[in-house]
């Protein structure tokens, strides 16, 4: 695959900051993610007295214990699964997903990132050989930890709108200004090579609270906002624009209104994937290919309303058609359903993906069988080069060709999150095995 993802057809201007920002903290093990969140919670006065008392150990407060909620995590001192925490400032509400750093738990990081508007990638300055940069001509980008690269790539791959690097533990370095400068250069070089747009690079000390909630003046030559100030102004994920109407049917409500109706009206509920829906609009049903006119549209609370992408709607058609859960209502002539897709997959299962195997694929609410026709390649996390592969092991990223048992209307993920994303489920274990991101047909090798 090419590690560079096409720039999505959206702009930041439509993202608003009026609603809660969902962001994750990610990065390598021990880079200070849980401590950072603890710091944000404490400094925004979200942590209550009893919770703070619960993380005192021998007089010291261990902020990481605020989010490591499982006993296995506290035993081992690591984060296994995402912890969701909630806090607000005077300006905004936040939902944080604290993602695990271990490669073994990448599936949980991907879970967190799939719902995030922003990703804060922690970088531990003390772990990087930044001082050696110019000595032997090696570029520091090679020194970024594999999980820093993997998490950044995954956040980018899943189209997280804003990616922020927080360079942590700079308080423990003598020449912190030089370290910050060199690490910033390395991060920018990596981001450029991978096609990642960086929203900001912020020097912080999660332990001491420098540049986390409040600015730490005159430090490492950085004069920008604190991390929290930055997050307060980041947009939530903008809806994909210029995509025709598409609507996956989630639930069919059979409505037989007493008295005189001999045949009950049916309401098709779901969330508008793209475009909008209003009465009078023509729609085609996938897979039956029949068409009808929209008679009535209800909002999620059953009010009559025009409903736009990202919101739930109930749709009543002008005449009865064969429509079931899993079907799609589509703008007529706008989509060409396909039986084969090329897609980038983030493989999450311990059992590797192998060519020839059949999985369940879920798009919208539609389950179809999908056979791995072939594995195109796997991306090398370090070099960003694609390399040949016969299987995809847990936590690897690669391109595959999937043959579908039934046609699906898809768009490249870069163009539409809703129409370009699927999950694969193991038919035997029922485990969720992969995140699937549809690539443009032109990318077919």
């Amino acid at each position, binding site marked *: 695959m090419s590690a560079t993802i096409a720039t999505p057809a959206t702009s930041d201007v439509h993202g608003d900051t009026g609603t809660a920002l969902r962001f994750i903290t990610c990065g390598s093990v021990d880079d200070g993610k849980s401590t950072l969140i603890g710091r944000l919670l404490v400094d925004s006065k979200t942590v209550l007295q009893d919770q703070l008392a619960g993380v005192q150990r021998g007089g010291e407060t261990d902020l990481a214990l605020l989010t490591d909620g499982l*006993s296995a995590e506290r035993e081992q001192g690591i984060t296994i699964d995402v912890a*969701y925490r909630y806090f607000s400032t005077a300006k905004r509400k936040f939902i944080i997903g604290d993602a695990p750093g271990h490669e073994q738990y990448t599936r949980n990081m991907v879970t967190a990132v799939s719902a995030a508007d922003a990703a804060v990638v922690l970088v531990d300055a003390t772990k990087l050989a930044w001082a050696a940069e110019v000595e032997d001509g090696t570029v520091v980008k090679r020194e970024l930890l594999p999980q820093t690269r993997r998490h950044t790539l995954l956040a980018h791959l899943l189209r997280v709108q804003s990616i922020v690097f927080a360079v942590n533990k700079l308080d423990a370095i003598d020449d912190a200004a030089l370290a910050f400068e060199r690490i910033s250069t390395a991060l920018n070089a990596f981001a450029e090579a991978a096609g990642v747009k960086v929203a900001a690079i912020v020097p912080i000390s999660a332990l001491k609270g420098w540049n986390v909630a409040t600015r730490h003046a005159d430090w490492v030559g950085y004069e920008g906002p604190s991390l929290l100030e930055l997050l307060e102004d980041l947009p939530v994920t903008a809806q994909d624009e210029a995509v025709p109407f598409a609507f996956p049917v*989630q639930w069919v409500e059979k409505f037989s209104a007493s008295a005189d109706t001999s045949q009950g009206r049916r309401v098709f509920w779901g969330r508008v994937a793209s475009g909008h829906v209003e009465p009078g609009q023509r729609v085609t049903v996938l897979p039956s290919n029949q068409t009808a006119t929209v008679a009535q549209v209800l909002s999620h609370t059953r009010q009559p309303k025009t409903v736009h992408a990202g919101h739930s709607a109930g749709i009543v058609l002008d005449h009865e058609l064969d429509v079931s859960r899993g079907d799609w209502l589509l703008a007529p002539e706008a989509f060409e359903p396909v039986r084969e897709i090329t897609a980038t997959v983030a493989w999450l299962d311990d059992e590797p993906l192998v060519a020839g195997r059949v999985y369940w694929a879920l798009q919208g609410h539609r389950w179809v069988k999908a056979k791995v026709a072939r594995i195109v390649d796997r991306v090398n996390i370090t070099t960003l080069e694609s390399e040949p592969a016969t299987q995809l092991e847990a936590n690897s990223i690669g391109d595959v060709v999937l043959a579908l048992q039934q046609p699906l209307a898809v768009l490249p993920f870069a163009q539409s999150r809703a129409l370009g994303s699927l999950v694969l489920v193991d038919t035997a274990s029922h485990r969720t095995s992969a995140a699937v991101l549809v690539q443009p047909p032109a990318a077919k090798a």
Partner: protein
Amino acid sequence: MNARTEADLLQPPMHSPANLSNTHLDALEEETIFILREVAAAFERPTLLFSGGKDSLVLLKCAEKAFGVGRIPYPLLMIDTGHNFPEVTAYRDQRAQELGAELIVRSVEDSMKRGTVRLAHPGESRNAHQSVTLLEAIEEFRFDALIGGARRDEEKARAKERIFSHRDSFGQWQPKDQRPELWTLFNTRLAPGEHFRVFPISNWTELDVWQYIERENVGLPSIYYTHKREVVERRGLLVPVTELTPPRDGETVQVRDVRFRTVGDITTTCPVESLAAGAGDVVLETLSVDVSERGATRMDDMTSEASMEKRKKDGYF
């Protein structure tokens, strides 16, 4: 189409207090309703756990908006410890009737009679034993999905849980091995005997719940608001004095103005001092509290750091 049918599809419009910014609550409500409909569609025998407590009443308000009165497509299930506040069970029954919903009650006492629940001593709290009765009810009705009103901000083991949370054939949660949950593509596939716990208000905070109760005029059992009650002080908590929880030697019974922040089994739930007479007052109090909801009120969570996780693994809500 038939004009009368059209009107019947609609819910009467809601009016909200003028000063509230509604964007956040609308988003939470919409997410919750999306999940409630997903359960209706994806499972064969779902049920909604309904205790009469504020979180399950908020859940039920969302269900009412999603489906309409008399049209909630799953029964309500309550696991009764036999140690309930009468105001809560009365309100529970009233609400179920108003909504035209089927209410199934299964009691810990019946499990004790069957011998599946054994108390270590007669005074032991029945709270944790609800798991046994719950799993028995799941087996009896072959439920494949149970909707619960747990929130991630309540407790740190809950902060880790998926919205669609898989349970094995023993009803056990495997916190170290949860299925990935990507976007809103929920993997609801099950093997026979397994089930899901589904948490549609995972992302609501205590404040969100109270603001929603205020905005939507959600009715609550009276003990959520200020009332005079006999209590004793014990380990920093106000313990209500009841037949089941008599004062211990040396404790002084006092009458205080209190309200409950959370309501559960009488033997584990404590009120807080408060004069809040309505949801708006509670919102203001919630904005200024410095002790968490469960920390202030739950004796069962204070026994060890992992008490909630342990109970959840055993099949608790």
